[in-house]
């Protein structure tokens, strides 16, 4: 999807993150929208598109229920059954490009940490594969298999993988919004217990409560908003819906198609990316996507990580918010918020010097992938 900066994010809103007992997921999404509206200096009546995202294991995130609760009758509304924000953002861009809406609110809110118990013990990968009777539970199962395969093929070590959790924490320490900010070294990583060997506890996200909202509009309208707009240059997706019928499905080789399209449609290559965001339910997602998006060669992510490339001061800033491993688990939505704030130059101590272009890559389990290129100027 070639956007050439025709669509922009003009405001973001984020609630407190962590344990928010007694809060409702939809209330948190609406609270986040309140902050975004305040940043945009508009009222809810000016929102004519409402896109919500279901929160896994809860009832939250249905557009019809959120609209009723928030007292909104937008021209267009829809619900996506899964998160990461990329899929929602692409739908917002399409709605704006086609005239279905001019000003779209994208919302996510969840109380899955303290509310209804999130079904993390469901069959691994929530993909309809009959793994549960064998104890193939939790996302760390398929992620462990994917990493073990990477190790066998390329000699990647646990220590190399550990650089991801450590770098994420180094970034999170400079992010006041992050839940996990205590010191965490490679030695600490290697001393952490395994969940599913070869993956350790720090390789896997901890779920949290919270809400996130974005306001998306056309580039022409974006000029009227108080904050500097962040423009979408391109968006791309690819599915692997056949799952276990696909070869090497846990490696998700079809992500390479997203990379090819998202760069081509933006007229850029990976060397133009100043900031990289990768949605990270486990560290393995980062390992895989560094390769699929061409930041290192196939099989070379381990040695690339070892150089400290993705840590503060490295050559490629990745998840400068701390990601889902250290900031909070908002199913990828906070990665986009961080990209917007970095591109606006609002990130204080962790601000990367003069970034112009960010790439956000995400996946819905082993079923689909998406990416968006964002920039603080229209090329």
């Amino acid at each position, binding site marked *: 999807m070639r956007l050439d900066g025709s669509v922009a994010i003009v405001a973001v809103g984020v609630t407190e993150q962590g344990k928010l007992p007694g809060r409702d997921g939809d209330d948190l999404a609406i609270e986040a929208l309140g902050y975004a509206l305040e940043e945009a200096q508009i009222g809810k009546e000016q929102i004519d598109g409402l896109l919500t995202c279901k929160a896994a294991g809860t009832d939250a995130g249905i557009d019809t229920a959120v609209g009723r609760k928030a007292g909104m009758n937008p021209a267009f509304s829809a619900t996506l059954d899964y998160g990461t924000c990329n899929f929602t953002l692409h739908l917002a861009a399409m709605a704006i490009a086609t005239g279905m809406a001019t000003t779209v609110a994208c919302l996510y809110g969840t109380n899955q940490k303290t509310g209804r118990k999130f079904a*993390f*013990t469901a*069959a691994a990968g929530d993909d*309809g*594969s*009959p*793994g*549960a*009777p*064998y*104890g*193939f*539970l*939790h996302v*760390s*199962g398929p992620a*462990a*298999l*994917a990493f*073990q*395969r990477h*190790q*066998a093929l390329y000699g990647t070590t646990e220590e190399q993988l550990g650089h991801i959790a450590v770098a994420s924490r180094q970034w999170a320490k400079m992010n006041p919004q992050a839940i996990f900010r205590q010191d965490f070294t490679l030695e600490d990583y290697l001393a952490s*217990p*395994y*969940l*599913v*060997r*070869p*993956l350790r506890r720090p390789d896997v996200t901890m779920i949290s409560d919270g809400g996130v909202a974005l306001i998306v509009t056309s580039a022409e309208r974006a000029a009227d908003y108080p904050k500097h707009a962040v423009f979408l240059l391109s968006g791309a997706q690819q599915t692997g819906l*056949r799952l*276990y*019928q696909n070869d090497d*499905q*846990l490696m998700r080789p079809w992500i390479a198609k997203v990379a090819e399209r998202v760069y081509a449609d933006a007229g850029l290559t990976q060397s133009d990316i100043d900031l990289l965001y990768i949605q990270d339910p486990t560290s393995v997602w980062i390992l895989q996507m560094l390769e699929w998006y061409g930041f290192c060669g196939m099989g070379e992510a381990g040695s690339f990580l070892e150089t400290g490339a993705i840590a503060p001061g490295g050559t490629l800033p990745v998840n400068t918010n701390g990601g889902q491993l250290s900031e909070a688990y908002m199913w990828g939505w906070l990665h986009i918020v961080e990209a917007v704030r970095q591109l606006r130059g609002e990130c204080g101590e962790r601000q990367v010097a003069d970034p112009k272009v960010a790439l956000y890559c995400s996946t819905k389990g082993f079923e689909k992938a998406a990416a968006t290129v964002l920039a603080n100027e229209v090329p």
Partner: protein
Amino acid sequence: MAAQVEQMKPLPDLDDPVSAPFWREAAQGRLSFQRCSVCGYLRWPAASLCPECWSPRAEWAPVSHDGEVWSFGVYERAFSAAFESDVPYVVALVQLDAGPRLIGKIVDVVPADVTVGMRVTAAFESFADDAALVNFRGLRSD
């Protein structure tokens, strides 16, 4: 001899007419898949339509029990109380010689001895009078 699975574990739904034959065949010591009557494609997971040609017609066809470990992980923590007494246990994705890829436990093995690429064969584990899960155990290379 097949081991008995505790009742509290999540078990396959034997009331599902589409998938139940898989588990019933396993109880007979057979690894069987629906073979499409039109194009010959082996369906896994079991389905009411062939994902290739969309024909609903299929016969349950026994295939070779052998395959190779595509990858594996060692559960050092149980994510459900039902598996607490099993920890540590090995779960693998097995590429069958017949084509389909199955998730199953690798049994009768020390976790440290499992490797990617290891040759394995089906090991059936009964969970009801006439139904069994399909695990795997190492194939001797001699």
